[in-house]
C-alpha cells in the first residue's frame, strides 16, 4: 500500500513535470515564433524603405527632366506624329 502510494506520488510528479515541460516548450516556441515574426516585420520594413528609395530613383531617372537633356545631347528628338507608326492588328478571317 505504501509502495503504491509512493508510485502514485511519483506518477503525479512525472505528470506535473510533463505538463510543465509542455507549457514551457509551448512558451518557448511562441517566443521563437514571435521573435521570427518581429524580425520578418523589421526585414519587410527595411525592404519597403529600400523599395521606396528605389522608386524615387527610378522616377527621377526616367523622368523627362532627366532623359530629355540626355536625349538632346545624343541628337535625339521627339518624333512627329507621322513618324509614329501604329501597326494594325491583323484581322483573323472567319473559317
Amino acid at each position, binding site marked *: 500500500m505504501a509502495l503504491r502510494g509512493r508510485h502514485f506520488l511519483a506518477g503525479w510528479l512525472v505528470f506535473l513535470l510533463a505538463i510543465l515541460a509542455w507549457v514551457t516548450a509551448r512558451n518557448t516556441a511562441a517566443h521563437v515564433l*514571435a521573435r521570427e515574426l*518581429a524580425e520578418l516585420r*523589421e*526585414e519587410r*520594413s*527595411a*525592404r*519597403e*524603405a*529600400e523599395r*521606396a*528609395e528605389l*522608386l*524615387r530613383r*527610378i*522616377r*527621377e531617372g526616367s*523622368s*523627362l*527632366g532627366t532623359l*530629355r537633356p540626355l536625349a538632346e545631347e545624343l541628337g535625339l528628338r*521627339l*518624333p*512627329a*506624329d*507621322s513618324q*509614329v507608326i*501604329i*501597326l*494594325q*492588328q491583323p484581322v483573323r478571317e472567319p473559317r
Partner: protein
Amino acid sequence: MAKTEVRLRVVQIAFALGVVALVARAAQVQLGEGRRYAADAEARRTERVELPAARGTIYDRAGTPLAITQERHHVGIAPNELTDAAAATRLLQSALGLGEREVRLALRRRWAYFHGPFSAAQVHELRRLRGIHLTRTYERFLPDPDFALPVLGRPAAEGREASGVERLLDSVLAGTPGSAVVLRDGEGRVYESPSRLDAFPVPGDDVYLTLDAQVQEIVETALADALERFRAAGGDIVVLDPHTGEILGLASRRADGSQPATAFTSVFEPGSTAKVIVAAGLLVNDLVHPTDSVWGENGRWRLPYRVLEDEHPVQWATLEHAIQVSSNIATVKFAERLTRTQQFRIMRDFGFGTPTGVDVPVESRGRLPLPQDWSGTTAQALAIGYEFSVTPVQLAQAYAVIANGGVLFRPALVKRVQAPGGAIRYEHRPEPVRRVVTPEQAAQLLVMLRGVTLEGGTGTGAAMAQYEVAGKTGTARVAGPNGYIPGAYTAIFASIFPASDPQLVLVVKIDEPHGGYFASITAAPVTRRVLEQLLAARTNALDRRRLARPAAPSPTQVIAVDPGVLPMVYAWPDTARDADTASRTVPNVAGLSFREAVERLHRRGLRARVEGQGRGRVARTRPAAGGAVAPGALVVLVGR
C-alpha cells in the same frame, strides 16, 4: 531544565507571533490593499498606447505609387546598456550618417536621442544592438515630391491643414489605429509586449486616381516649357477622357513659383472657345441651317455700345466658317437668333456656372449671370466668351460633350478605392449628368471644330500630319480690379483628339503670354506638342488599336460601336432612343440641399426643376417621394 523549557517556549511563542504577524501583514497587503498595490505597480510598469495605422497608398490609374506611407524611426540609446560602445559608435555613424563627434558627445549622456526620423533600412542594422531603442512613426513619402502636388495635396500635420485628395479622402486613407499595453522600465523606455495587443491597427485603404503618371508628367513638363517659352505668368492644362469624364492629366503652374489656383479653382473668361456653345444652342433650337450666312461687315461692326472687330475679316460667313476663322461679328449675329433663355439654358446645360462635382475639396463654379441680370450687351458678350467665367475643368467637360456624342459627364479624379486585402470598396463608373445635344448635333459641332485646324482656320498650330485634331482657339482679355488690363490676355486652346474617333479632350490655357499672345501661336502649338508626346509615350491613355483602325464614317456610328462606354440609357431625354424605359421611383430628397437633390435626381435619370430661389433645403417634391414616374420625368423641388 525547567528554565530551558521556559526559554524554549518563549522563543517558540515569539517565533509563532512573528509568523502570525507576518502572515497577518501578508494577508493585509494581499487581501486588503492588494488591488491598490497591483494597480499601482501595473501603472508604473505598463502603459496603454495607440498603435498608429499605416496610411493607404495613392496610386495613378496604372498602379504607379504617387504617395506612400513609410515607417520611420527616432533612435534612443541607453549608453550603459551598450556592450561595445566603440562598435556601436561606428555603426551609428555609418547607418544614420552622423558625425563621429556628434555620436561620441551624445553617448556621454545617460540617454542619447537622435530624432531623425530615419528609414527602416537605416535602422535595420541597429536593431540587433542592445541598448538601442527605436520609436516607430509613419510618414508620407512622395517618390516625386512635385508630381501632381496640387491634386494630391498633403495630409494634416502639426500647424498645417490637409489639402487635395489627402484631405478629401482622409477618412478612407487614414485607417483605424490599434491599441496595446506595453512594458515600461524605470527610465520610461517602452518595450513591446506582443501578448498584450488589444487591437491590431488596420491600415487605410489604397486610392487609385484617374490620373495617368505619364500623361501627368507630359502635361507638367509641357506647361513648364510653355511658361518659359512665352514668358507667361501661369497656365493650366487638363486632359480628360470624354467617354468617362476621367481626368488623365492636370497641371497648374505659376511662373513665379507661387502656389497656383488649381484647374478646379482658376477662373477665366473663355473667349472664343465659347463660340461653339452658341452653335450648339442654334442647333438644339433648330435656328440655323448649314447654308445660312450672315454678313461679316468686313471685320469691323459698330454697335450702339461697342465696336466688334475680327482678327480675320470675313464677308459672308456660314456658322461653320464663323467658327473656323473665329469671327466675333458673325457669331454675335448668329447668336441674336437665340432668346436670352435659350442662350442661358444651353450654356447651363454645358455645365457653365455650376460646379462639376468632381472629387476635390474645393471647386469654383465659375460665373454665369442669370438672364434677368443681363445688360443690353451681355448676350453679345456671352456669345464670344466674355462676361462669364469658367474653370479649365469646366471647359474640358463642355468639350467632352461634343467629343462623346452629346452627354455631359461628371469629371472624376478617383478611379478606385481598394481595401488592403484587395476588396474593391469603390469603383468609378461614368456618371452622366444630362444629355445636352443629340449625337447628330454633336457630330455637326465636331465637324465645325475640325475646320479650325484645317487650312484657313485659327488652330492650324495644333494640326498634325497623320491625325485630325478638332478644337477651338480663344484669346481673351484678362480682367483686373479696374476693368480689363491693357495688353494682358489669356490664350486657350480646347481640343478633341483624334477628331475621327475622339479619345481625349485637352484644354491648354496660358496666362498672359508675351511676344505674341494669340492662342493660335501659343496654346495651339503646345497642344500639338502634348499630343505628339502622348503618341510617342507608352501610356495606355490612348487606345492605339483605335488610332490604327480606319476612321469611322461618322461620330454617331463610333458611339454606337464603342463597347460599354455609352449605354443608350444615357441618351436621356431623347426618350425615343432610350433602351431603359422601365418606370422608376422618385427618391426621397427632403432635407438635402438643392444641389444634392438635383444630383440625386439626375443619377436616377430624372429631370429636376427648382421652385423658388433654390436656397436652403428641399422640403418636398412633386411628384412625392416614392411615386413611380417615367425615365426623364420632371420632378419639381419645393423649398422650406
